[in-house]
């Protein structure tokens, strides 16, 4: 059964163009020129119930605009969408009972009050029965380990603590479909991992469909089974994350901080990897189809003097550029 479906869903905005300088400002007053910007152009998408979908793309690709149309916040310029059998922008309030939304850059918690007060409000707004609300709240508090800061004003919480509260609040009314827009933005690696585990657990235990946008390849790898990449407002790629991992997430970046006195010119060739930059901090791109991180680190030890090492996924922008390049190459 489908959780959401879109057909040729698109959104365009009129943007005022203004020339630089004072004269440009005056000209825009008398004779404004408008430009139509296509934020999302004709997206076709089917998401089954219980699926975990990563909705990816570079900044300005139309990810957030799409989520806002699917949650009923924005009205599309053209096309159709059905979310849990409802048209989001026509039946926004009815749909709101059945979906949850987390915006990593916006807070739904009341700033000067402790999170427990917002939980109480959400219980009322979503018309949860009092006994059910109590059980659900206590269960989420336990699972998300919110006990220690439940009664602390939100303004005093760290970003990680706040985000755990935000996500728990979004699960309070048992949404069938959870939209998450950059839920791990700005968080450290440990908190990110914990939040991913919690979302995965909700998906597994309650069958919550997850529709997530992120710039973090780690979110995609550990949370999602399917990846949809959009670029310039249209779908560029739609395939299982496993396949995407094999094809394009097969790279890791190893950053070394060279020890004082070690000459970067003498960096050795490493099998299955190539140096992307050579300097105080040098970067080695590792192709996991040809080698393993263990082997690469083994080759580096003893041959390169370094004081620090960091292994990470390439930025998602880079991955998308890579995909885009591959597709354009194939078309030619």
């Amino acid at each position, binding site marked *: 059964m489908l959780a959401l479906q879109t057909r040729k869903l698109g959104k365009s905005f009129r943007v005022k163009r203004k020339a630089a300088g004072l004269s440009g400002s005056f000209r825009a007053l008398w004779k404004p020129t408008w430009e139509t910007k296509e934020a999302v152009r004709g997206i076709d998408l089917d998401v089954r119930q219980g699926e975990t979908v990563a909705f990816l793309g570079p900044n300005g690709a139309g990810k957030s605009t799409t989520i*806002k149309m699917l949650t009923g916040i924005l009205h599309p310029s053209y096309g159709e969408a059905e979310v849990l059998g409802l048209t989001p922008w026509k039946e926004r*309030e009815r749909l709101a009972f059945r979906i949850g939304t987390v915006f990593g850059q916006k807070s739904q918690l009341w700033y000067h009050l402790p999170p427990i007060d917002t939980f*109480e409000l959400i219980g009322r707004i979503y018309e949860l029965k009092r006994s059910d609300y109590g059980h659900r709240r206590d269960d989420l508090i336990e699972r998300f380990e919110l006990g220690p800061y439940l009664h602390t004003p939100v303004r005093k919480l760290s970003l990680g603590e706040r985000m755990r509260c935000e996500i728990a609040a979004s699960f309070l009314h048992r949404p069938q479909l959870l939209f998450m827009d950059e839920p791990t933005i700005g968080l450290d690696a440990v908190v990110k991992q914990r939040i991913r585990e919690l979302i995965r657990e909700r998906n597994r235990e309650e069958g919550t469909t997850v529709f997530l946008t992120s710039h973090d390849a780690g979110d995609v790898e550990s949370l999602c089974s399917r990846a949809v990449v959009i670029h310039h407002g249209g779908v560029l790629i739609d395939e299982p994350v496993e396949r995407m991992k094999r094809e394009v997430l097969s790279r890791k970046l190893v950053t070394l901080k060279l020890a004082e006195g070690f000459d970067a010119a003498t960096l050795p060739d490493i099998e299955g990897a190539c140096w992307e930059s050579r300097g105080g901090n040098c970067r080695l791109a590792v192709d996991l189809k040809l080698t393993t991180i263990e082997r690469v680190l083994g080759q580096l030890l003893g041959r390169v003097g370094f004081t620090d090492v960091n292994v990470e996924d390439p930025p998602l922008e880079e991955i998308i550029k890579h995909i885009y390049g591959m597709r354009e190459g194939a078309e030619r």
Partner: protein
Amino acid sequence: MIEESGSRWAAGRKAAAVGRIAFRHQLAYKTDFAMRGFFLLFILFVFIQLWSAAYGGDYELVISGFTLKQIVWYLVFTEALTMAAPPLCSRIEEEVKNGDVAIRLIRPQSYVGYHFSVFASEALTRFAVHLLVGSAIAWPFVGPPAFGIGWLGLLALSVGALTVTFLLLMLVGLCAFWVEETSGLYFVLQKLQFTIGGMLLPIDLMPEWLQRICAWLPFQAALYYPAKMAVHFDAALLGRQLAIQIGWIVLLALAVSQMYRRGVTKLHVNGG
């Protein structure tokens, strides 16, 4: 397990819940309360001096139906009502500019209804505080507010007055869905309330042609009616003014509803 949804009772319970949390939230702004209280004291002190000079210090003199005591208390009531209104226009404008409007629209609750609950909670609290602060200065200068049943008239008309104010502010605030900048419109609205709303001067003291124009505008229902009724209670007029307030509330609510319906289709939510 969700209770019966969409019923009027459910909407009322949600409104009450938002009102409660908004009340608790505003308690964090103690400095803001203190600053506004101080400003109110200052403004009223200036007006008491002005009107005392205009009346030549004569407490028995009656100008257009007002004694000095009545006019000073009239000002206390209009100032308390004016300053009770939270900055709704700038809030909506900010919500649109920084994209927080998205957080309001993901909830199973009316957007206008949410803002009304927050407004009502804050405005009623502020109104009560401002009445106390205003009394603290008016009482020593012109005597106690012994208006008897006039207080009932004030309270009866203040609810409608604040609702009319909310709807007027909402109309201006919703313009942010189109233009993102509403401060100019708000400036005009505020000055209209100050003048032809009867905040600075009771409408009875204005020229007759202006009084006739004011009668066709909603501003007097938001300030003049409750303040005048407090100092000059008139049972027959109370019913008429309540009916006029209800008329304006229905008319303005329809306008707000239409504007919201149109505006939400034009909305462009900023930020990720």
